[in-house]
């Protein structure tokens, strides 16, 4: 699934052109991206949470050369699926 499929699904429900829907879908992801720069969390009930985690600097190793390197402090984004989503993936009829 890509944005095109999402646009298609929304297009079938609202009376806008596909071009308009595509713009709105783009806006939704832009809003989420901007929000993650300012806030630490997006909670989508029934789907999951996008959470920013602050990682401290740590010593690491270049796996190719074995060199000792410093891994700098960083902010990373993680996704925690909701119970509802996890249950949906594991329903009997969802199994192949």
């Amino acid at each position: 699934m890509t944005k095109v499929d999402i646009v298609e699904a929304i297009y079938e429900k609202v009376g806008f052109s596909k071009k308009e829907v595509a713009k709105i879908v783009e806006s939704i992801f832009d809003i989420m991206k901007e929000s993650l720069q300012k806030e630490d969390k997006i909670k989508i009930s029934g789907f999951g949470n996008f959470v920013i985690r602050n990682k401290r600097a740590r010593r690491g190793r270049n796996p190719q050369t074995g060199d000792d390197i410093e891994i700098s402090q960083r902010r990373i984004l993680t996704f925690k699926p909701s119970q509802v989503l996890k249950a949906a993936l594991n329903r009997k009829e969802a199994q192949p």
Partner: protein
Amino acid sequence: MNKAQLITLVSEKTNVTQKVAKVIVDTLFDGMKESLEKGDRIEIRGFGSFVVRSYGGYKGRNPKTGEIVDVPPKKLPFFKVGKELKEMVNTVAG
């Protein structure tokens, strides 16, 4: 931010009513959920991708009682952050 706040922002930014914005946002996440239920991979350019990974069953232990329990096979969704968003998130001060 929660889903209601996202809907409000979408409504303001795109000049659609709250009601329509809700239908759109709900359809987006419902569609993504259904896609993952089918085992499909989702790829959102500039944002990230979702894949479903399957795990085999195993025998585990109830940590409280020590009782041996069967953990059935399961599927879990994983999110891989897109390059653009990964950099956006990390370039924020603090």
